[in-house]
């Protein structure tokens, strides 16, 4: 089972991907690592931030690992490079 989610890119991840957002079809049940691999295979330049990136799923942080994620159509998935607010 797959679904379409909205992937958002910010700051350095947006520069590397060359876009700010896109719709992607992904498995409804996956791990954050598999999700990252899918995104990075589409935008190989994102590999340079591989060791210091996290995702946000429905606006909640998820570190890249084996945690199982359930996705629903229309969910927001954001690629979050190290933050620098303040």
């Amino acid at each position, binding site marked *: 089972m797959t679904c379409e989610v909205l992937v958002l890119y910010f700051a350095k991840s947006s520069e590397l991907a060359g876009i700010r957002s896109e719709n992607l079809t992904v498995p409804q049940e996956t791990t954050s690592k598999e999700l990252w691999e899918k995104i990075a295979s589409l935008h190989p330049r994102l590999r340079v931030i591989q060791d210091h990136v996290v995702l*946000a799923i429905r606006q909640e942080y998820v570190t890249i690992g084996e945690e199982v994620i359930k996705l629903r159509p229309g969910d927001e998935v*954001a690629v979050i*490079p*190290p*933050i*620098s*607010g*303040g």
Partner: protein
Amino acid sequence: MGDNEEPQDFIRVSPEKLSADEVSQLVVSPSCGAVSLFIGTTRNNFEGKKVVSLEYEAYVPMAEIELKKILSDIRQKWPTVKHIAVHHRLGSVPVTEASVAIAVSSPHRNDSLDAVKYCINALKATVPIWKKEMYEEEGYTWKENTECFWRKKDDK
């Protein structure tokens, strides 16, 4: 006592210019003797390079959620804190202008002083906002807060 005022949270993440008076006036309360503030401003230099501005962007709805979590933590840690205002500017912020303005009111000063310090530290650690430093010579750098746990440890 006129002290039936409910504690209020004021959060704004937008391109508007920031003002110390504005955040201070938002939090001032008849039942409070203290307003503590922190204003983050753009510095003109970084490691010998001349900086002309910082360019901010945010994942705005999530930034607001993360700020709400911080304000909720503050209210747990310092129950006497009355009002809290956090304004973060987006877009280009020239040297000496403010990128962030935080104000906290409390009946007695230590609570608001400590809460402001906690707030700016937590903001830097968890709120999805990014800045690039624009140099006079050429080029820029995406900054990474030392408080951000997923940044590479060997980076500056």
